């Protein structure tokens, strides 16, 4: 066990964990941030996606010690003062989910994409998000929501 200081959603959080423990497990079980999901533990499904210094990362394949010193953003950190992030708002508006289990990872991946490519074409979105699995098959609505969010964000 070591004591680590993490910066999660803008706040400094102190946590006792083995340095090689996955960031996913630390977020979920030690910091009670359960919005980030376990889907496969192998970096194959994207359900555990968080942003590390703004870039999407698979938290199940990231050791917590690697995340120390970086800005960690989870699904819980996207809304500001009760106002949804434009990507969250677009997902809600398009009802781009069914069971919703992939949704946090999808939204965080999309936020990461739009930070880098503000005006992605459909193929960019598909290519960027193809590591995120939605077993319910809500992909067309997710594509539409991401494009809608991109439009909203560019207007700001």
């Amino acid at each position, binding site marked *: 066990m070591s004591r680590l200081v993490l910066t999660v959603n803008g706040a400094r959080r102190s946590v006792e964990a083995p340095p090689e423990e996955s960031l996913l497990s630390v977020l979920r079980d030690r910091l009670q941030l359960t919005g980030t999901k376990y889907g496969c533990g192998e970096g194959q499904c994207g359900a555990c996606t968080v942003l590390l210094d703004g870039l999407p990362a698979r938290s199940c394949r990231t050791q917590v010690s690697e995340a120390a010193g970086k800005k960690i953003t989870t699904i819980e950190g996207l809304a500001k003062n009760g106002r949804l992030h434009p990507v969250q708002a677009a997902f809600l508006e398009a009802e781009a989910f*069914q069971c919703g*289990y992939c949704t946090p990872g999808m939204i965080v991946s999309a936020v990461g994409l739009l930070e880098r490519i503000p005006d992605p074409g459909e193929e960019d979105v598909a290519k960027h998000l193809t590591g995120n699995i939605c077993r319910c098959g*809500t992909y067309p609505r997710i594509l539409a929501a991401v494009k809608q969010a991109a439009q909203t964000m560019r207007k700001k």
Partner: protein
Amino acid sequence: MMRKNEPSDLDLEVLQHEENGRLHWFDVDRRAFLKFLGGGMLVCLAAPRARAQESGRSSGGGRELPKDVGAWLHIGSDGAITVFTGKVEMGQNIRTSLSQQVSEELRVPLESIQIVMGDTDLTPWDAGTFGSRTTPTMGPQLRAAAATAREQLLDLAAERWQTDRAKLTASGGKISNPATSQALAYGELTRGQNLVRVIGADPAVSPAREWKVAGRPAPKVDGRDFVTGKHQYTSDLTRPGMLHGKVLRPAGFKAAFVSLDAGQAEKIPGVRVVRDGDFVGVVAPDLWTAERAMAAIRTQWNVPPQPSGKELFEYLKKNEETGGRDARQIKGSVEQGMASADFKLAQTYTVEHIAHAPLEPRAAVAEWNGEKLTVWTGTQRPFAVRDELAEAFRISPERVRVQVPDTGSAYGGKHAGDAAVEAARLAKAAGKPVRVAWTREEEFTWAYFRPAGVIEVSSGARRDGTVVAWEFHNYNSGPAGIATPYAVANQMIQFHPVKAPALRQGSYRGLAATANHFARETHMDELAHAAGMDPLEFRLKNIADPRLKAVFEAAAEKFGWGRQKAAAGRGFGIAGGVEKGGYVATCAEVEIEGPSRHVRIRRVVEAFECGAVVNPDGLRNQVEGAVIQGIGGALFEAITFENGRITNPHFAQYRVPRFTDIPRIETVILDRKDLPPAGAGETPIVGLAPAVGGAVFAATGVRLRSLPLAPKGLEKN
């Protein structure tokens, strides 16, 4: 065609698909059955399975549902409406569609309704959320309860005001008298008391044509919780003092211990190893430590020889369960039909096992409080899981409470209570609440699979395209959707169960309807080709049911069938059918790409009709989702296995549809307000595979008769 007093198709599915056996046998099972039988272990282990089948049968139906309104809904003194149903939400959006129906009949805003779902202490008994039954059965049940409540509220107000109830109206959560401007909120009328009126045979429900809330799009009632990460699935729940559990998995199916050394695991601080019968698990204060402890257990296993994937279809054909009831469905005489045919065709089709791979692997949190066991778990059958727990721990079902948080999907894969039993066993030993959440590999290995199957079809047709003889045999995959919806005078249709399936098998979205539609519609395509007819024209020639004709025509119209020719390297296909009261027709365009001749689906048009539509937006989401999930089973999904081991238990090896696989999808919903609503969770999946197969044939002349059609492209087939 079905004889009287014979099990219905649904009963057969319950028998075939919902009995998965148990993963674990505790010491108490062995002792109990030794005492009972006084005999050897093999007999003992077989006995509970037979018993469980009995209970599986009775849970398929036959229970009386409560008739009093109070069992289904409660109006608080503040006007808050609480609805109770044993159905569960797993992404099919019934929390919203059922709320819409209660809102409609009770004349209250959608937001004032909360639904308690799948809680065995609070909700009426329910067989489970499967078979597309929520919309055709629970919808009318709750509409009837709400309409009866509304009538009672009108009576209460009329009594209070000493006036004629015909002058009163129910609207906006109030009973009003327009003549006097008097109004009373529902909560003021009931004062939180239970509604005791009995739901009559003919409740005053509104016809679909008059719906104002139902029948229109409504956003998911708690959608915001899903985009903020606030919604808690089972795997997110914690309880005070909760420990994390892991369960030892054998090296193969049906494996027996040779040796087990848990010494190293027990030395890890905070870890406890629990052993009971063939069950071995660990608990630890956190998941990370529990995983390390499990990895430290040293085991040797003896895995008995068992069938492997390469001999699967031969195995299924050889191991037919014989001596059961005569399951043949016969109409006319196939022999005479064949004799009158101008041409005949006989072909064999196969489907592999596939995995549900719900994105939330199964999980449970269990807590014992004295004699009471409470388990939270994502299951489709909370009451059956309650009974499973009661049986496993030899306690009465009244002492078990199962609660189902809205679940990270299931697709038929979450009928059994394995994780619930595991968590409860560990919690009992630990004396603290325990969460067990399966890994992806456990999910891919120790859950159960959609059954594989072999389907043999022989047929005869006249030169004008009339099918005159139809013989259809399904080995193992199941009887759902086995009957042909085409008007064929002479038929013999039979499902052949297999004695010991090659893998643990169970329910899957649409059950065997996907396999049976694949075989039937591919065969119809082959007959059309043999008759020199267009695939749509050939089908229409043999359809008598106007609803089936309507979906075929609607899909064809939207797709532009017959109005355009496919570009080079591309082809069009069409298929459809009837299942669970829903009618579907699917058109697909495929393109054959690159040196491996990869099959890419470019465009899908699907027409669907399920009577009166309750939530058109939710329905479109279900239909599109079914088409997309269907792409996996159609093109590339297959579980591979060898001698008791799954050889592709990871997303890197078991390919599921991803963004880059998605075609342009258009759905055509035929809203029949004159017909009762049917379910929509399953039937929209059945048309895709044969439509894609037909399109591949149109593009290449290659007829594919096995699902998945082209996992590695046509070159590798």
